[in-house]
């Protein structure tokens, strides 16, 4: 790689900046006119005669960033006043929503993706009651705003879960029942397979959700849930893996399926570019191999959500190792639990991984 000519960290920025950005003031070597600019809608001209159409074909991942920290609860959960649904726009067509950990400890992530002809909501949160967790209201408001911006009247919405049986992700579905212009992917396994056209091929084959210029692939990935699926977004180059692979304690429900699904995803990454793997939760801390216990409502030292695709190789290696064994296996970015209690602990610490205990939060 050619040495960086213009950027001198000592003079231009701090490579160890707290935000984790190597180029806090931008990287001059990249130049100004990046190709991704055409993927972003323009605010000018202000008033347009016809609906805005986005170009979802791009070289490499679409531009976008998680520019903020996730809310992480509070020491006294009863006094938490953070939003019940935290919204971070990743880019103009991609929103990441997180449930407040003081509403439900699972604090699941929900993804809202827009295409030219529709929107997709991936997962629906852990709380059904709209007054506690107003997911529907938040999604409606985002869709209404996007509709105004783009000059659309109706935006059909599809609501799909990474697992229909997962009570940490399916509870919000009830809020969308009866919503006009909405397709809720059925949750019973057989009907879900049929819906995606996978009845005969499951767990091989893939389904599609066409949002208009942005086609989301549906990849069967049972293993942590018998009805688990992952979604691939070719625009952001994201794999949405739900409970199958996320920075946390992965409770394996069937170790053969788990390994097969990871290998299926690995094969997928060989033929499709993947920037990040986006799971459904965060349970790991930012120190390697340490996770918050179940039911924690204060997680000030949380790891970031996104995982690089190389984590897949590691997951496959250790899924093989754990197969057929009732045990817990710690890795820096995730923990595997096979046929043990979700609260299982272990005295085995992975070799070569620094064993750091963050201070008590109080």
């Amino acid at each position, binding site marked *: 790689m050619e040495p960086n000519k213009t950027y001198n960290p000592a003079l231009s920025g701090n490579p160890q900046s707290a935000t984790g950005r190597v180029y806090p003031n931008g990287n001059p070597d990249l130049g100004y006119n990046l190709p991704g600019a055409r993927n972003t809608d323009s605010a000018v001209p202000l008033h347009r005669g016809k609906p805005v159409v986005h170009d979802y074909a791009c070289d490499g991942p679409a531009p976008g960033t998680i520019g903020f920290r996730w809310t992480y609860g509070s*020491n*006294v*959960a*009863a*006094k*938490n*006043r*953070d939003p*019940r649904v935290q919204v971070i726009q990743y880019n103009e067509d991609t929103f990441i929503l997180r449930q*407040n950990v*003081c*509403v*439900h*400890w699972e604090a699941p992530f929900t993804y809202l993706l827009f295409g030219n002809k529709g929107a997709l909501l991936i997962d629906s949160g852990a*709380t059904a*009651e709209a007054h*506690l*967790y107003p997911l529907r209201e938040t999604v409606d408001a985002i869709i209404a705003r996007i509709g105004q911006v783009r000059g659309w009247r109706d935006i059909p919405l599809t609501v799909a879960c990474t697992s229909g*049986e*997962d009570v940490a992700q399916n509870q919000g579905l009830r809020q969308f029942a009866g919503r006009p212009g909405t397709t809720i992917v059925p949750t019973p396994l057989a009907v879900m397979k049929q819906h995606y056209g996978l009845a005969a091929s499951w767990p091989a084959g893939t389904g599609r959700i066409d949002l208009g210029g942005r086609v989301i692939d549906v990849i069967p990935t049972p293993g*942590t*849930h*018998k009805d688990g699926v992952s979604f691939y977004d070719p625009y952001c180059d994201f794999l949405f893996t739900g409970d199958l692979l996320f920075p946390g304690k992965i*409770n*394996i*429900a*069937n170790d053969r399926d788990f390994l097969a699904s990871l290998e299926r995803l690995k094969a997928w990454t060989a033929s499709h570019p993947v920037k990040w793997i986006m799971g459904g939760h965060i349970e790991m801390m930012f120190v390697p191999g340490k996770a918050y*216990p*179940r*039911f*924690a*409502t204060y997680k000030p030292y949380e790891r970031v959500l996104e995982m690089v695709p190389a984590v897949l190789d590691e997951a496959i290696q250790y899924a093989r190792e754990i197969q057929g064994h009732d045990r817990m296996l710690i890795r820096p970015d995730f923990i595997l*639990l096979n*046929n*043990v*209690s*979700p*609260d*299982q*602990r*272990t*005295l085995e610490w992975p070799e070569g991984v620094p064993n750091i205990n963050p201070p008590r939060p*109080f």
Partner: protein
Amino acid sequence: MDRRTFLTTSSAAAVPLGSIGAAGLARAAAPATPIDFKSNLPAPGSFPDRWICGSPSCMDNTDPPVQVHWYNPHTAILRQNKAYSYEAPFAPLYFGNDRVLLLDEGFVQLRNDWDLRGVVDGCIADWCKRNGRDPASLELLVAFSHLHADHYAATNQFADRPNTRYMGLTQEEMMGFWGMTNFPEERVTLDLGGRDILIWGSPGHVMSEFAHYDSYTQILYTGDMFYRGRCYISFWQPWFDSMKRLIDFCDTHPVSHVMGCHVEISKDGQDYAYGMTYQPDEAPVQMTVQQLREAFEYAKTITKPGIYFTGTVFLCNQTRGTTTIDQNPYRY
């Protein structure tokens, strides 16, 4: 007065006149009749049918930060709100003619987060109003059953409270606070002013733990070594010996209730997993002597580490570091 003397001096001599302020002197002009804590025992009292036990969404919890239940007019039992800490321990507050004993606290340190000090001051003010006393004349003893943070986290809220002593956070200071020299066998008597609290060592869950017996209500407070939930037994033999001491005590003393620090089990024996913040159907905190005896009989049959259900409590024998009761519900 040193530690040994405050344990043994009589209630009349235990109020140093010099410590009574101007307001105290005004009231002291008509001294209230001392309360009789030694007749008609056990003093009747009652536990609530249902304690406040969390909510589905923590941030929407509107219950008081501390539930105060008056077991009888001279005995309050405090419980931390589960939305303030999942540990939600119980904390008895025993009143005597001269001093007040707070046993255990809750799992929050700072007053701005959780004002235990304010609640305790409020209880003392209530009691004093009802009994014609001056709060400044009552000494407060802040102690804890054992050396775990969910039982002492709020300790420093009492640092600037007048006429208050609290226990230090080491085995030595805990023993010294009760004037013990022969832990765990030695049983000391704390005189709250006509109301005796018997205290002895009860190690097993941790090395540094006490059992407390209130001679007025005859409640035996067993801390975390025996409570309605998962008794995490870190050290089997000390725990078993402590159980034997409790049984021997029950053989020789009347006990109205056995009470632990937490509840982690439902009325029908379902485990509420470690860390849960909502226990809608939780079992009562109080247990009978019979339940204690049954658990001891069960314990006699235990020879290996593991989790055992006695019908009342889970005995988690040296399992804390490795396993728990829950299963993954999605296995297929």
